[in-house]
């Protein structure tokens, strides 16, 4: 039984349909990448998983249990944490306060606390009292990841970690990601950066206009297949 799975998941923004029946699964310890062009529905999918968008009943299951009706603040307590696109740190909170807020919805016991996060991202410890708005893009991304880790998630949903970051910073972020994986956390990774995504993923899904257009293990997917699935050509 998969840790988290969806069954023909749909999503709407008002009258506009963004997802047309996504079927998806991730097992414990796996890293799954979701790739696709802008507007394909990748972020929408993560938001649906995290409970920020209304889901039809019986469309999302965690440990076999239907969580479609649960609000976001209950889902994080079950161990599903979303690192949102664009970082979205709390502007009037400092770095440390941002991290501490992440612990509000703690899912039981686990390896992640303030010290563990500072060990993962040492630069944050130096800047613990800085207002979150005064950080660089890469540091903000670290805070965002750390904040979500503070809830000790079983599954970490990462939305566009590399967005707007310099390559050297992206490398650091992905190094940290490896650390997170090593502790047994499952990761769903939405990425525009194909190279990094495919390098770390055990499996990949490609979204195209709200539908899954391709799925498989990265080493099994050819460049041409990915291209076709990406752009729908």
């Amino acid at each position, binding site marked *: 039984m998969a840790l988290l799975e969806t069954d023909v998941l749909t999503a709407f923004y008002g009258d506009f349909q963004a997802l047309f029946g996504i079927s998806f699964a991730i097992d414990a310890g796996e890293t799954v990448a979701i790739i696709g062009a802008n507007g394909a529905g990748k972020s929408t999918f993560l938001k649906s998983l995290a409970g*920020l968008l209304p889901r039809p009943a019986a469309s999302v299951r965690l440990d076999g249990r239907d969580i479609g009706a649960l609000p976001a603040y209950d889902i994080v307590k079950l161990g599903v944490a979303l690192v949102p696109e664009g970082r979205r740190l709390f*502007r*009037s909170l400092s770095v440390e306060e941002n991290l501490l807020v992440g612990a*509000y919805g703690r899912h039981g016991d686990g390896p992640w606390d303030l010290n563990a996060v500072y060990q993962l991202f040492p630069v944050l410890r130096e800047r613990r009292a800085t207002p979150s708005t005064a950080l660089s893009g890469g540091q903000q991304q670290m805070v965002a990841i750390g*904040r979500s880790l503070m809830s000790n998630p079983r599954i970490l949903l990462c939305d566009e970690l590399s967005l707007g970051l310099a390559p050297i910073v992206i490398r650091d972020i992905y190094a940290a990601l490896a650390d997170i994986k090593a502790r047994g956390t499952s990761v769903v990774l939405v990425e525009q950066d194909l190279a990094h995504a495919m390098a770390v993923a055990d499996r990949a899904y490609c979204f195209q206009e709200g539908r899954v257009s391709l799925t498989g293990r990265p080493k099994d997917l050819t460049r041409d297949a990915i291209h076709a699935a990406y752009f729908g050509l």
Partner: protein
Amino acid sequence: MLGWVDTLLQGVLLGGLYSLYATGLSVIFGIMRLVNLAHGDLIVLAAFVMLALTAVGVPLWLAVVIVVPLMFAAGYALQSALLNRTLGRNILPPLLITFGLSIIVQNGLLESFSADTRRLDVGPVQSASLPLGGGIAIGLMPLICLGAAIAVIVLLNSVFYRTALGRAFRATSDDVEIAQLMGINNKTIYALTMGIALAVCAVAGYFLGARAGFDPSVGPARLLYAFEAVIIGGLGSLWGTLAGGIVVGVAQTVGAHINPEWQILSGHVAFLIVLVIRPRGLFPRAVD
């Protein structure tokens, strides 16, 4: 000269009262982006409930101790049962619901208590005064009121800035969607916020009743003073709200000093002036 110093002092003390009116409003708007049009009427309601309790023999201090948590519960219920159902971008539903509530409270009080002006009997401290030398004296009650305003702000700030719950409040105020991702139930936060606001209203009601007369119809004017204090002070800062209250208070006493009929008008004019030259207020913190 003496007259002006006295006027300024009275204005500052009056500002303490207005700050108490305004603090609840400031908190609600800061966290929920909501304006409660019944805010002033709820202050008056608290005063009347205290009055009613004293009328059946409850000592006033006990009445206050009872009414403050009672109003907290009422605020929690109001938000949970009514206002949480109208969350969203459209401001009209909450505006109209609180407007309807304002009318209900005003007229309910009118039916229950008649339109007579009442006062809370605080005993001899009512007319006690503190001489400051040079012929100037300030009332003890207004001074205590200012002290209470400051105490409330210190208390609220320590909750907001030193506790996990306070972090949750501030996170909700910053980005309610992401706050939910942190496990924060925004509906509960809103209900607690409204509870806090109404508890502060209860304290304000006590000082309203202690300092001056009140009747069922004085609510809307309190709302306007509170609103002006919040805007002048700048959104997002409780100390700013205190400053805003003092500005309104001083404007009113200065205006009254020139011509007693100009008291309220002066407050409004000061508000409009600040709005024109510093639209974000004197000490803005939050960026909307």
